[in-house]
């Protein structure tokens, strides 16, 4: 079946550096993508979204890039902070269903 996946299961980053989390998707019919952050013991929290008619969207310290040609999505976090340590999921939407990848665990080193 079609799924959303992530390239790397873990990412270690020095505090203050920029983080890049990658995601590959395979459903070309998906027209909407979301990044979620999940901290230990909590449900996923919405970070930022992007529609398929866009290739870049910026939020506060975060930027999402979408490359539909290679079905690739990335989340960039500027000036990574200890509070950014979490599991990050990309998700795609077809109709009303979110399909999630396995997640990337981000660990911020002090």
């Amino acid at each position, binding site marked *: 079946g079609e799924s*959303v996946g992530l390239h790397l299961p873990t990412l270690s980053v020095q505090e203050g550096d920029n983080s890049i989390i990658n995601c590959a998707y395979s459903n070309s019919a998906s027209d*909407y993508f*979301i990044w979620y952050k999940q901290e230990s*013991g*909590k*449900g*996923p*929290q*919405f970070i*930022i*979204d992007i529609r398929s008619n866009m290739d870049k969207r910026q939020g506060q310290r975060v930027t999402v890039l979408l490359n539909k040609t290679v079905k690739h999505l990335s989340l960039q976090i500027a000036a990574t902070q200890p509070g950014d340590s979490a599991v990050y*999921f990309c*998700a795609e*939407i077809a109709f*009303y*269903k*979110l*399909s*999630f*990848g*396995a*997640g990337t665990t981000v660990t911020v080193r002090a």
Partner: protein
Amino acid sequence: GAGVSQSPSNKVTEKGKDVELRCDPISGHTALYWYRQRLGQGLEFLIYFQGNSAPDKSGLPSDRFSAERTGESVSTLTIQRTQQEDSAVYLCASSQPGGQGSNSPLHFGNGTRLTVT
């Protein structure tokens, strides 16, 4: 305002027993979802409710799983004759009509951690 509330937060049960998990969505949210998250994995869609429409049950893994929702309020997920492979975190989420998007993002509860011994 309160977020999505799930209870219990943790549940340990013996294999073969039935369990019932509860979700209180955010008031006014007509869309409600149940997801299952196994350890170290992503979220697996289970079921979707939207208003008074027939629910989408396509993600339920077996007939031991069922869910109900009364109007636009509380939902319960029931697992009958639990098996060890049912051990996971069960997450509930709600959103306003229209589903996903930064204008109506999906709000998740903190989940119920189910352990079947």
